[in-house]
């Protein structure tokens, strides 16, 4: 079967689960059948004034039900439009896109920061399923308000960091790791660039493998337009220059191969 599917997906349900955070479930059998943790989909707006699709990471994939779960923050007019979708509405979607996380069979940190938290949930589920005996810990960094916490707790041990100290460790995810004396062989992370930079450095110091999911403004979402690239250490075989396509070779990269600006 083709790797990607494009079409109208039915909205199964949508709920607001936080300040500007929405939880959307779509019926998209062909995408659910193909997708894996770390991949994303493109959502298209109805309003013709907004012409580019919005990339949204997969929070959960239910191949059995043929549904995908998207947890996103309203950041502009496009996501505002999506937040108005109701059960029974249709939304045009393309996916799955990107490479997704690779499994290393080693103990891991699953680290999410802010709106980078949702994709770590599907990763936790897949690790539990595919690597039941490997131990992994989830470290979630919030500004203040928590979301998806119960879903994560159902997947294993969760450590929380909040900037305002309203829950868990006061500070960032690294503060939570240190405060709880946590250790692992691999880091999987998604979140804001300062967090990713800090994790890359932390992984180097501690000789850990580190896989980071990157973000960038996208246009085509499938690797044709070269809008969403990131600098790389080595020349990339496809682009033949020192950058890679986040929507195609990424969004997940080995921290060692990319330069985080």
């Amino acid at each position, binding site marked *: 079967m083709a790797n990607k599917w494009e079409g109208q997906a039915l909205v199964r349900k949508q709920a607001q689960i936080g300040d500007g955070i929405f939880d959307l479930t779509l019926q998209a059998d062909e995408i659910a059948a193909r997708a894996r943790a770390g991949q994303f989909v493109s959502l298209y707006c109805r309003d013709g004034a907004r012409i580019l699709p919005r990339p949204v990471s997969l929070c959960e994939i239910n191949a059995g039900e043929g549904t995908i779960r998207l947890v996103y923050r309203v950041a502009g007019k496009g996501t505002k439009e999506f937040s108005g979708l109701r059960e029974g509405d249709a939304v045009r979607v393309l996916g799955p896109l990107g490479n997704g996380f690779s499994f290393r069979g080693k103990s891991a940190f699953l680290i999410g920061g802010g709106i980078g938290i949702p994709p770590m949930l599907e990763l936790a589920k897949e690790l539990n399923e595919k690597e039941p005996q490997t131990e992994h810990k989830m470290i979630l960094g919030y500004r203040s308000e928590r979301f998806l916490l119960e879903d994560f707790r159902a997947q294993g041990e969760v450590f929380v960091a909040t900037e305002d100290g309203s829950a868990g460790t006061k500070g960032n995810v690294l503060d939570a790791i240190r405060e709880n004396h946590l250790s692992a062989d691999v880091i999987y992370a998604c979140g804001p660039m300062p967090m990713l930079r800090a994790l890359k450095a932390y992984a180097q110091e501690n000789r850990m493998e580190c896989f980071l999911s990157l973000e960038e403004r996208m246009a085509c979402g499938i690797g*044709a337009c070269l809008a969403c690239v990131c600098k790389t250490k080595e020349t990339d075989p496809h682009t033949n*220059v020192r950058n890679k396509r986040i929507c195609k070779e990424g969004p997940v990269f080995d921290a060692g191969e990319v330069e985080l600006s």
Partner: protein
Amino acid sequence: MNKNPDRNMEKAAVNTSVQICGITFKNPVMTASGTFGSGEEYSELVDLNRLGAVVTKGVANVPWPGNPTPRVAEVYGGMLNAVGLQNPGIELFCKRDIPFLRRFDTRIIVNVCGKSAADYCEVVERLANEPVDMLEINISCPNVKEGGIAFGQDPKAVEAITSEVKKRAAQPVIMKLSPNVTDITEIARAAEAGGADALSLINTLTGMKIDIERRTFVLANKTGGLSGPAIHPIAVRMVYQVAQTVSLPIIGMGGIVTAEDAIEMILAGATAVSVGTANFMDVHAAEKAADGIEDYLRRHGIADVRELVGALL
């Protein structure tokens, strides 16, 4: 009753093929350079055999890394891009991209970019023995410091570079014009004087978007090229003006989303059209445009798309 004529037209064969410089395209719909790569990524979702031609992303004599990110920004009814002609260089392109496209029953037009006349000529010469149908010379990219638009806004430079390229080109040469000029007919005449075989217009209009919350430019390059449906009326006007001025075949582009947009461009004087930014709005936009033109011909009882070319001139 009412529907019978349509049904008959369904059966009736309509010709959608067009000729440019003696080359036949199965239909007038191409992909605009820079929006479709070399077709490989889209081929998963789109039947490239349905397209009149694939116009590749611009390729230079050596690999170009392009501009820093962010490279794109959405604007009302359009987008800004400042990719900066990132490309893998002509060698890898000839080894990988051309053989890939040869697997499909569609024409291949290679978009050529450069920072100097010598750059363009080097690429054109390298392509002389490659199985490609036409060359599109990009002298109108607003996102590179040297070359690009610098050439495209000066009639003398346009004529000079056109004749330089023509001296070395084995394939017919299309000059791609910038809309960021006072009088595009003057530029078109210069390209014709330089020996161009055809013209592509329009490239993007230079625009800017500011993030008022962060109080900074959205694009790392500050300015970018405006494309998408927002610019279509400007493109139709320029195609119409140029079609009245020169005798060269025109490939019309700029904000074409639907078959209706494409037909407007053809009536204004374009022999073929390119679908660009619309590929981002709908991966099937180009296929749908090709199908829609065929439907239009049937609905209006027009046997040959060529009857529409420049019909309003």
